[in-house]
Each structure stands twice: as C-alpha cells, then as structure tokens.
C-alpha cells in the first residue's frame, strides 16, 4: 500500500511551500533517512530526509509551489505498485481529518427566563412599537416568530388590506372603508363579546337634582380645587359605592376563574376620530384605583388621562387593566335614552348613562318636575345573576339619589 508524502505545515506563517529540488529520481528506491528533496517555506529552506522507504513516485514536480497538506510524492511498496501509481492510480484519501461529523453547538437564542404572565403577549420590541402606532391589539394577532412571537412581518400582514369589495347595495357609493386596523379590531371584539358572554341589559332612571346641587358646591370652588369637577367624577364615586355593596360586579372572568378585584380600575369608553370623515374610533382608557380617590382627584386624573391619550402619550397602563367599564352617551344622545351597551371583555359589568331628562315624578305624595339620569347596566349572567345585579343597581340608584352616601 503506497504511503503518501504531503507538504507539511512547518510554521504558522506557512500556507504553502515549494519543492526546490527533488534529490532522488522518479522510480528510485529511497531508504528511510535518505535525502529526498529541498523544500522551501516562507522563511526557511530544508533538506528533507525521506520519512519512509519505498519506490518514489513524484506527484509535484520541482519548482512548483503548493498549499500545505498537498500530496507531493508517494512511496510504493514494490515495482508493480510503482507502475500503478505512475499510471495514475487513485491515491488514498489524504488531507486533514474530516471534522464535519461533530455537531457544532446550536446557538442559544435569548431564552425568556420569565414565562409571560397572564395576558402578556410575546412580541418583539419592534413589533410592539409598530402595533401601537397602527392601533393594533397584539392580543388579537397571531405570531409567526419563534415560540409564537409576534414579529414585524405579522404586523405588516395585519395591516395589509384584505378588503373584498362589498356587494353593492346602492348604485352610487359614497365611500369604501376597508375593515382594517382599529375598525377591524372593534368589529372583532364586539362580536366576540356578544358571542362569548351571557350579557343582558337593564335600564332605570335616577333622580339627580340633589347630586347636581352637590356638584354645584364643587363647581363654585373651581379655583380652590384646581379643577371644574365633572358630573362623571361623582358618577364614578357612586359606582364605587355600589361595587362595595356588591363586589362581584367588579370582576373579570379569566379562563375558568372569576377574579373579583379589590381595587376599581375604571374603564372609560372614549370616542376618537376615525380614519375618514365617515367613520369613528373607540378606545377604552383606564383610570386605575378610583376607589382610593376623592371626586376632585378622580376628575383631575381622568382629564389628565384623556389628555395623554389624545396627545399620543398613553402608557400601557392607561390602556389596560379595567375591572369595570363606564360608557356614557350623556350630552350626545336624546334625553332619556335607554341603551344596551356591549360588555368590554373581560369585565363582568358595564354602566351606560345617557342624557338626563326632565320628568314629572311623585315625591312624598307630590308631583314634582325632577331631573332624571337614564342608566343602562349590562352584565354577564355567567357571573352575575339577576338578584345581585338588581341589588347593585339599587345601590347605585340609592347613592345617586342620596349623594351623602358617597361618604360611606
């Protein structure tokens, strides 16, 4: 079996070498130790002694420069083999051992050491930023990144128009608005709410003349209090009173668990401009821990919150975490409007006050003209039954008509 002789790598600066001269001839029988060739590297010239014995078959002629580990010559065991080599027999495998068989370590992707908590969506920082700018709800998107992470391409896909032209009902179309972005989000959430819950609405009216008089005493002290306290601030205070009487109204259904909260984060539905003159937008901003605030603070914080939202500086907290929702049409709807507002999931309950109306009512046996606030209350019957719902409504009603109870 022929022995290979390769160009050795003799120094770090050596990538190639040159056989200046072969000191034995093709076909010669060479002894081990006999001078074989003069090899020149980048720095040094060597008279090389033959490492093996055999019949010499020269592969690389003198004067040629070759890379290290190139086959220079072979030693044949006998003349037959020499003949074979000279006739171009394939030489045995040479060169450095194959390292390919060992697995290179797989790269460690930055593992999330904290599993996302309830409600936390896996999304890249870039995707979050893009979603926020586009008004997309991350919770509603499907992530195609590793581990279901939402990445840029998912945001781009969600933004893409998939509008199919609606079947024309009228001849002349005023506008076409693709169902995308915020509109699509709202559409999806509304249907989801109606589909997944057992919600129903009840309406009544509460006499708010006394409450309005109370409010007036705050309004005349606007400068002192630093704010012109709104009616809604008092309404929120009354809602808190009612929640304290029937705590289960301040809850969320999460998976198979009704989580009843101690603090009250008031979701407030806010109308925002749509993308065109025809449509509108809607978002729920959240005022946290209203149960710990007085009406002045509620009013101030609510105004600051809405300000932040309208100027694009809303924080994540401003837009999430509601335990109860308030959705008012007061001042916009016709007086006395009764409504059936859709629940803001995952909240159990939502209060929908509307425009106050003047009516004749019987009070202490007399017929008086009083200001009545129409209130519609939507609740999820999976969690809140009719009896506790009625008790909640009564508690609110009582507090509105006897505003002193807000001090309780």
């Amino acid at each position: 079996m022929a022995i290979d002789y390769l160009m050795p790598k003799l120094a770090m600066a050596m990538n190639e070498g040159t056989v200046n001269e072969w000191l034995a001839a093709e076909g010669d029988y060479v002894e081990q130790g006999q001078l074989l060739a003069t090899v020149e590297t980048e720095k040094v010239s060597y008279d090389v002694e033959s490492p093996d014995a055999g019949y010499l078959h020269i592969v690389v002629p003198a004067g040629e420069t070759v890379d290290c580990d190139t086959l220079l010559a072979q030693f044949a065991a006998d003349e037959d083999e020499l003949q074979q080599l000279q006739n171009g027999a394939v030489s045995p495998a040479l060169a450095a051992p194959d390292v390919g068989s060992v697995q290179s370590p797989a790269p460690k992707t930055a593992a999330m050491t904290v599993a996302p908590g309830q409600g936390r969506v896996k999304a890249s920082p870039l995707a979050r930023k893009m979603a926020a700018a586009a008004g997309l709800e991350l919770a509603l998107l499907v992530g195609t990144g590793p581990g279901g992470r939402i990445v840029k391409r998912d945001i781009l896909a969600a933004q893409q128009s998939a509008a199919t032209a609606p079947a024309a009902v009228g001849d002349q179309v005023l506008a076409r608005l693709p169902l995308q972005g915020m509109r699509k989000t709202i559409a999806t959430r509304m249907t989801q709410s109606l589909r997944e819950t057992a919600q129903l609405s009840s309406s009544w009216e509460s006499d708010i003349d006394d409450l309005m008089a109370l409010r007036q005493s705050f309004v005349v002290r606007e400068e002192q209090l630093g704010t012109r306290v709104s009616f809604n601030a008092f309404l929120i205070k009354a809602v808190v009173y009612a929640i304290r009487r029937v705590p289960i109204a301040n809850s969320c259904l999460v998976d198979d668990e009704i989580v009843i909260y101690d603090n009250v984060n008031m979701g407030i539905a806010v109308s925002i401009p749509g993308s065109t003159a025809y449509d509108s937008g809607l978002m729920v901003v959240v005022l946290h821990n209203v149960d710990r605030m007085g009406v002045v603070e509620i009013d101030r914080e609510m105004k600051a919150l809405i300000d932040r939202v309208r100027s694009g500086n809303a924080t994540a907290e401003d837009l999430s975490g509601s335990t109860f929702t308030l959705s008012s049409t007061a001042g916009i709807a016709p007086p006395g409007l009764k409504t059936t507002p859709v629940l803001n999931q995952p909240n159990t309950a939502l209060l929908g006050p509307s425009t106050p109306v003047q009516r004749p009512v019987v009070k202490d046996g007399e017929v008086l003209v009083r200001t009545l606030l129409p209130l519609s209350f939507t609740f999820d019957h999976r969690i809140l039954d009719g009896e506790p719902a009625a008790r909640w409504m009564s508690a609110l009603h009582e507090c509105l008509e006897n505003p002193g109870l807000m001090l309780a």
Partner: protein
Amino acid sequence: MALTREQMVALYRNLVRADQYNRMMYRRMMQGKLIGFYHPAEGAIAPGVGACTFLNQDDNLSPHHRGHGITHMLSKGIDIKYYLAEHTGKETGCCKGRSAFHFSFPEHKVYMMSGFIGYNFAPVVGWGFAAKRRKQGQVVMNCSGDGSYGQGRAHEAMLMAQNWKLPVIFFCENNGMSIFSTAAEMHPMEDISSLALGFGMPSRIVDGQDVFAIAEASLEAIARARAGEGPTFIEAKTLRFNEHDIGTPDLAGWEERSEEDHAKMREREPMKIATERVLGDGILSQDEIEVMEREVAAEVEAAEAFADASEIARPSVEELLDAVFAPQEI
C-alpha cells in the same frame, strides 16, 4: 561522587532513547504528523537525561521545553507513547487530546507545561514548600533554559527557595540562545549560575554535553536537597544544534548562524561523547550498544504505532464544558 557501572548503563540507555525519540519527533514534524510546534533537542539531549535518571517517582519535575521535555520525562520513567498521542491530538493522550502539546503526568509528579517561558518558577516554590512540609525527602527538579532566567519570577523563586531552604534544584540548561537572541547579548553575566551567588545559593557549572558529568552533579544536588540542606543551582553549558523550533530560521541576533558555528557545535555531539566513554571505560561493548539501539528503536516504533492507531479526540462541546471544573465531593 563517581558513578557506578549500573548507573552509567542506565544513563547511556536513556541517552539512546532521548536521541531516537528526538529524531522521531523531528521526522514526524517534517511529515506534518504532529500538532503544534516542536522545539528540537539535537545536541541538547544530555541535560535532561543526566538530571532526571535518578529521580524517584515522587520527586517533582518541571521539564525544559527543549525537546518538549521528552528527554527529561523518559528519564523519569514516563511512558512517552501517551505524550506522543497527546501531541497528535488523540483521545489516548495524557491530557485527553485537549492540550495540543502541553503535557501533564500528575502520577509522576510532572504537573504541567505552559507556553509562557518561566511559568515553572512560581509552582516549583509551592512544590518545594509541600515537599518540605511532608518531610519525606522529596526533591524538585526544575529544568529550564538560560532565557527563562530573565523572568522576574525566576529571581523570586531563587530568593524564596534559598530563604526557606526548599529542596529545589535550579537546573539551568544554558545553550546560549533564546529563539534568535543570544545570551551573550541579552545577559550581562557570563554564567547564569552567578545569579545564585546573590541569593547565597551554592552552584555548579557542568559540561552539558557530557551526560555523566551532569549526572554526577545532579546526584550531589539531589542528595543535598533530600538531606534538607536546601537548593542548588546547576548550570549545564549545552548547545542547540537546530533552530529554536521547526519552521523558524536558525539565526543569532538577526543573522544566520554560520557553517563554522554549526561545525564547531557538532564536534561536541553528546551521543558520540557518551559512546566513546562507555566503550573506552569498558562499560559496554559495541554489540551491547547495538542491541540497546535496536530495543530502543522498537520502543519508538511501538509508541508511534500506539499514537497512530488511536482515535482523534473529538468530545462534544457539552462534555468539554462539563470538564472545566473539578467535581465537588463534600
């Protein structure tokens, strides 16, 4: 202290082995069959043999990197095939193929080799310290070249060894060269051993081409150390026939070492000197020498066969990471 016939035969045999092993390493390097560098020991084989042949198993040894410590280690009774396997990246190597050519044989008290010249001077102090505490007569044979004594740590080691009378032998193999730099140009003192004077350490200068002279001096120093008398500095004036390492030119300063220099050096060929002596003194016959040479050749062949037949070490990264720290047994 005159050597006995047995001692001389043992030394001669180790010298034949050192010579053949060195030639084997040189050849393999030229064939591309070694990993890393090789610093050839032609002309420099006597010191390792002379210094180490009479060490015990439990004596510490730090071999010189000249000849990759082979002449030292085989003289201490280490089976070089495991080092050759290591030097060819095989899993049967003394360091599981991980070290390239940095040997370690802890059971023979040869703990390590490192690429930093003068690395030995720090640990030898510790070995001497441990040996002194144990009071079992162990000695530390610390072999390194003239260049290594440029290191500050060499002076710290001599200071502390002499001060504490540690059983450390400072064995300096002075071949007058460090890669290209000559000792004549780099060191102001003619003899490296004169440094020992400053520390109050006794010293001797011996002919580094004469394995028997080296052995005599070494035996004396070993006896002193075993008896608790402290360190000795032995300077073996030796020669480096080849370049510093294969692939590097053979320069002194920045000019080629001349033909005359080489011819002059080769007049003091250690194998020749030792052979003349054993023949002349009737210690060994030519026939006996030839038998010895054949036996050693077979040994070298077996070592090569072992290394070449072994598998290349390719443990997974996980296995290697697991091996970074020693296991904890509490």
